[in-house]
């Protein structure tokens, strides 16, 4: 039963994502960041490759690969460039949330609102807003940062609902700590009409779990890129007569970075599997998100550290990884909210990790 193989179909999709990210995203990392936009024509090739809706049911144009498929692909794409990924795929978390809270019907309605994904949508988790007031027909929002200069659709995930507005969206550009390829703005919404609404507390909890896993897998990709780049650098750069990676202090640091990444990946995959299996997943997803944030705090700065002064310069990607990993970690309530949610869930049981518990291990 226990099997960590993704399966032939998903392996193929993941490999496609890896190759596409390396050929299409990696060469334009800095150009896209400077331009605050992806290169002309990239959006069209993104749509052709079909990675944007892969978790959606086939009836809705997706590949039906679920949350596991999403997290595996996200890691590959983000390892290429998370900034361009967020620019191309900002709507994906909305669909994931909609699936959990309103099912396929909600996804269908959202696809209409975004004109089958052609219009840009962004998801705001209510905890990330400085202000989030919702009544029966309108919403008022003040969000300090979204990774977009503009959007046509804003979906807000609260503790029990998913709400959508398409008008009255005001974007105040900000420089952004990272993900500049996707743009960056503060978002204000003042009494905008709610055009769609789904309310379902359990579904909202699962939706949040799924959104956390979405961002967690992006974080995994960024951190993997840091690990791979800094390790490769440590093989080439010499100090005191040998590659710096052959000095035990750095060798152990690189080893610990890799171990941390592998472990966090395991948590993300198990939680994603639980989502797809219909099992409880809020505690597991919150823990996976918290773990990814925790390792980002060390892997990001350590990636720069391994490169020394070079790491501090924008000539190398590790400084960008460090900034973006930190910024992304602040979403969905960040570390403290994840720990709080996971902690409260854990203590309901006297033996929360007992083997042979519900569903999985």
């Amino acid at each position, binding site marked *: *039963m*226990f*099997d*960590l*193989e*993704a*399966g032939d179909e998903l392996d193929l999709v993941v490999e496609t994502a890896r190759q596409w990210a390396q050929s299409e995203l990696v060469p334009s990392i800095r150009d896209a960041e400077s331009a605050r936009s992806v290169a002309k024509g990239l959006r069209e090739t993104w749509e052709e490759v079909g990675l944007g809706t892969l978790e959606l049911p086939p009836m809705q144009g997706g590949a039906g690969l679920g949350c*596991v498929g999403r997290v595996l692909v996200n890691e590959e794409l983000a390892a290429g460039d998370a900034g361009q990924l967020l620019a191309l795929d900002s709507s994906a978390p909305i669909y994931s949330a909609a699936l959990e809270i309103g099912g396929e019907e909600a996804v269908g309605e959202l696809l209409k609102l975004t004109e089958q994904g052609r219009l840009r949508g962004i998801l705001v988790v209510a905890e990330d807003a400085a202000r989030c007031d919702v009544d029966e027909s309108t919403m008022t929002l003040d969000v300090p940062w979204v990774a977009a200069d503009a959007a046509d659709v804003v979906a807000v995930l609260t503790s029990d609902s998913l709400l959508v507005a398409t008008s009255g969206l005001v974007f105040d550009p900000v420089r952004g700590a990272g993900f500049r390829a996707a743009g960056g703005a503060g978002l204000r919404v003042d009494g905008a009409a709610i055009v769609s609404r789904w309310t379902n507390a359990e579904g909202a909890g699962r939706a949040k779990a799924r959104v956390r896993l979405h961002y967690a897998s992006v974080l995994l990709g960024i951190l993997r890129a840091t690990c791979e780049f800094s*390790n490769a650098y*440590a*093989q080439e750069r010499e100090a005191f007569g*040998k*590659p710096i*990676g*052959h000095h*035990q202090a*750095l*060798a*152990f640091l*690189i*080893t*610990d970075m*890799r*171990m941390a990444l*592998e*472990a*966090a990946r*395991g*948590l993300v*995959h*198990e939680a994603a*599997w*639980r989502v797809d*299996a219909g099992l409880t997943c809020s505690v*597991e997803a919150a*823990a996976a998100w*918290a*773990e990814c944030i925790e390792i980002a705090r060390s892997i990001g700065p350590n990636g720069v550290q391994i490169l020394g002064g070079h790491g501090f310069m924008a000539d190398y990607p590790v400084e960008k990884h460090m900034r973006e990993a930190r910024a992304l970690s602040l979403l969905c309530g960040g570390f403290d909210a994840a*720990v*709080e949610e*996971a*902690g*409260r869930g*854990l*203590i309901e*049981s*006297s*033996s*929360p*990790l*007992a*083997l*042979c518990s519900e*569903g*999985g*291990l």
Partner: protein
Amino acid sequence: MEFRIDDATRERIEAARELGEREFRPAGLAADRAGAPIPVGDPFFDRSIARGEGRTRWRPPGAATPKARSSSSPSVISNMLVAEELAYWDRGVINAAPGPGLPESNVVSMGTPEQKERYLGPFVDPDQPRWACFAMTEPGAGSDAAAIRTLARKDGDGWILNGAKCFIGGASRSDWILVQATLDPTKGRSAQRAFFVEQGTPGLGGFNIEKKMGLKAYESTSFTLDDVRVPAENLLGGEERYQSSAGFKTAMRTFNAGRPIIAANAVGMARAALDETIRFARERDLLGDSRVRDRIESIARKVRKARLVCLRAGWLAQLERPNIIEASMSKAMAAQIAQESTSAGLEILGADGARGDHLIEKLYRDVKAMDIVEGTGQIQRMIIARSLTGLPR
């Protein structure tokens, strides 16, 4: 991708849980309080034999396979989860259990038919608790197994062994000891051989059961080999095996299932500390305190991730895929997390943890060994770094 476990493994875990709660936990606590291993004549071992434990998986030629063993062998994953569950109840008691123990696999895979008959035969259907053990570690050679100094010298049609071994589990109560020795200490592992030394052989002596910080249920023993003479047929695998270049390396593979099992033990101990911490915090009404909850969350998250890293290493071993990096990661990570888990538990206990009578305090002492046996955390990192960064040997 599938994280469910099969029904057969589920049943094994349930059985291990029942056995652990009824037998292992009380026996481990009693040994810890007594400060001595479970005695050879303890009824605990008689019950173990009566349950059919302490037997070899080897079957004599032509012997029928016992019904209970007729189905396919449990998977590595299944064994790891059972190892986790048993260690949850008491890791020391696992090591105390009678049986052919650590050397069994070596004898099964490398032993001559006569050696299997002579040394594993008594473990086919033992009428009393029997032990055997493997002696590698020496006062001057722990993780660096290539550095052992116990010398084997050819003498006529036999061998003479001289040296000292330490931290050997169950040595004084073993029917025989598989002793690792070297023909030439300057030639590393290629010069190493393993010899069966039967209890009572002249020159085998000086047994000293060490006083330990934890894991007191089983004996860790030092002993000496002083001109111990063994016949040629006591060389594991026989002389001919070593005429080929393979030698002892035949036992080495690109995958490793031993380290993930030890790591799974550590996960079980960490989980025990977690549960005891939650129980204490609930009883003392501390769970409303976010500082306490956050610590518990942190422990649980780390234990969960260690388990998944272990299972990944075990899964690769099960498929006989290379897992050297993953096996070392599992060992390094799980042992460290288990130490952190018990330590954090003690902090939540506060001064109650300093009384010396709480299970978490015992676990804190027990678990330190997990970062030492089968290669320390530092050795594991060296193994990983050789692959990852090209760290020179």
